[in-house]
């Protein structure tokens, strides 16, 4: 290709990269900036840090006090909910991808259809009320059940396509070796779709983590609240204290960062693994 073309492409690339980075990181940067400001400071200069001696460290103290007690709740609900969802998604997508039975496609489309229904909030409220009748009121387990019930449909859709792309000889070879369906999921589906599964799990985890409405509606006991609800309360009193709010969000993102650092390796490995195709 010509030099000229190259320079043009170079420009396009830089543009794209800048674009992506801007949209990805500017909000985060501003979150940190604002977390050190009072409301007045924020209104005067929302874009960058003020001089360090005017920083409002107390925002972080208030935020910590608010969030502090809810961290364990959040972790429990998000973690358990993700695991349960993963199991359901794995089983469903494996069954749809590998079994042939009459009406399979119709069932698949019906399930897909539920994705378009008010789903999440509506269905969950309903179910929660049922759970309440069943004596699971005001328990974190209720949240776990909720998290597991909604939102697997997209996961099933994606994972089913992925499983169908795995060469069927891999499954047959395991079958001849005497491996049943459990062995096939464990030794073929799980390792080969590690990348896509980790993305699904992380999305679920994030969803649970950032979930506000359910806990707000459903939990009565203050000690059971999850982080975003705690922050939501902070948000609701009198005037919004943007600095405290941002500090709270920053704190609540720490566990997510830890997960990211751990799963990063897994991501990279998953991405590099495309070995079956090659």
């Amino acid at each position: 290709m010509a030099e000229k073309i190259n320079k043009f492409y170079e420009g396009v690339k830089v543009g794209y990269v800048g674009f992506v980075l801007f949209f990805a990181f500017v909000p985060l940067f501003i979150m940190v900036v604002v977390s050190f400001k009072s409301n007045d400071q924020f209104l005067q200069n929302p874009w960058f840090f003020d001089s360090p001696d005017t920083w409002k460290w107390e925002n972080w103290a208030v935020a910590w006090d608010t969030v502090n007690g809810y961290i364990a709740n959040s972790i429990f609900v998000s973690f358990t909910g993700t695991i349960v969802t993963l199991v359901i998604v794995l089983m469903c997508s494996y069954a749809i991808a590998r079994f042939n039975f009459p009406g399979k496609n119709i069932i698949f489309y019906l399930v897909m259809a539920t994705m378009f229904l008010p789903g999440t909030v509506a269905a969950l409220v309903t179910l929660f009320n049922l759970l309440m009748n069943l004596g699971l009121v005001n328990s974190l387990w209720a949240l776990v059940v909720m998290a597991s019930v909604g939102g697997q449909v997209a996961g099933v859709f994606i994972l089913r396509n992925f499983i169908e792309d795995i060469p069927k000889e891999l499954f047959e070879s395991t079958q001849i070796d005497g491996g049943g369906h459990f062995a096939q999921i464990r030794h073929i589906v799980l390792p080969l779709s590690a990348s896509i599964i980790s993305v699904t799990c992380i999305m679920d985890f994030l969803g649970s983590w950032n979930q506000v409405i359910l806990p707000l509606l459903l939990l009565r006991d203050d000690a059971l609240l999850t982080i975003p609800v705690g922050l939501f309360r902070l948000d609701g009193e009198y005037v919004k204290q943007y600095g405290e709010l941002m500090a709270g969000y920053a704190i609540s993102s720490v566990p997510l960062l830890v997960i990211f650092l751990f799963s990063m390796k897994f991501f990279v490995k998953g991405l590099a693994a495309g070995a079956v195709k090659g």
Partner: protein
Amino acid sequence: MSSVTIDKLDKTYSPGKSDSFRAVKGIDLHIKDKEFMVLVGPSGCGKSTTLRMIAGLEEITGGTLKIGDRIVNDVAPKDRGIAMVFQNYALYPHMTVFDNMAFGLKLQKMPREEIKRRVDNAADILGLQTMLDRKPKALSGGQRQRVAVGRAIVRQPEVFLFDEPLSNLDAKMRVQMRTEISKLHARLDATMIYVTHDQVEAMTMGDRICVMKDGNIMQVDGPLNLYNKPQNMFVAGFIGSPPMNFFVGNVSDQAGAKKFTEKPASGTGFEILLDNRLSEAAAKQSGKGVVFGVRPEDIEIVTAADSEAIEAAIDVAEPMGAETFLYLTTAGGHNFIAKVQADHSFSLGEKIFVRFDLARSHLFDTATENVL
């Protein structure tokens, strides 16, 4: 090791429905103990379906399948005493070569020492000793296929099943793996059933070859018998490359002997005075249509003066080095191929004269396509 006996084996997909399809049509086949049997045919002929029924991966919808003396129609794949090697290797990409080979044994809960002994032994046989710690990604196609064979060997099966194992390899590696599998058969002294669409693989590897078409068996025989004494036009055309040339025509009497006359597409067809053997065959078919078949290497270039000379025009000449393939057209407008010595060069469009070697030619019935 064991024989495999197939009796009226039948496979119908979606039986009773509108898209029902009968892939295997009640075939009989006996594969002897320690035999290397090749199932060959074009795609859709039922060869893979047959193999997969033997493996237990497809349900048998009719007939019986015996491995040794045991009817195994209803036995699960893992209990049939078979091992299968797949075209795409079917290796676990996330496991090392050792773990890939050991996987089936681990599922059987075999003791670790026994697993190690068997895998090391298989690695020895296949020259994989130095690669046991590598992932499949780090191996060449040939090495991957060898690992797949290793997975079969460690199971010590009574019957090895191969489903087009060399199709994903490049030409040179295919030739090499071909002789490796032949040597392996000699070494393990095992019953092997090998499916391929490649007639060269079939010819060079099989003790016997079973040629299939549309769910039926066309002929089962040794390689040279298939080549020299095909039972029908399908086998004659399928085995050999370039394939046998066929000329449609009819037979008439001339001066006590029989004469074959080509039915021309345009212009005039050629005539051949048949020898005794072909005349006798042709006599069975007097007055009805016959097909004359001759292989490319049994065509010789002669001068116009030769009494049996047939005129032909050169369309394309493909030099292969040792010999040249000539794509020719008869005066009657039919295309055929001749394999000639590479010692002189040909110009396109040139008119030449050829003679067919009658001792190595065949006559077929136009209607049944069987040899006369």
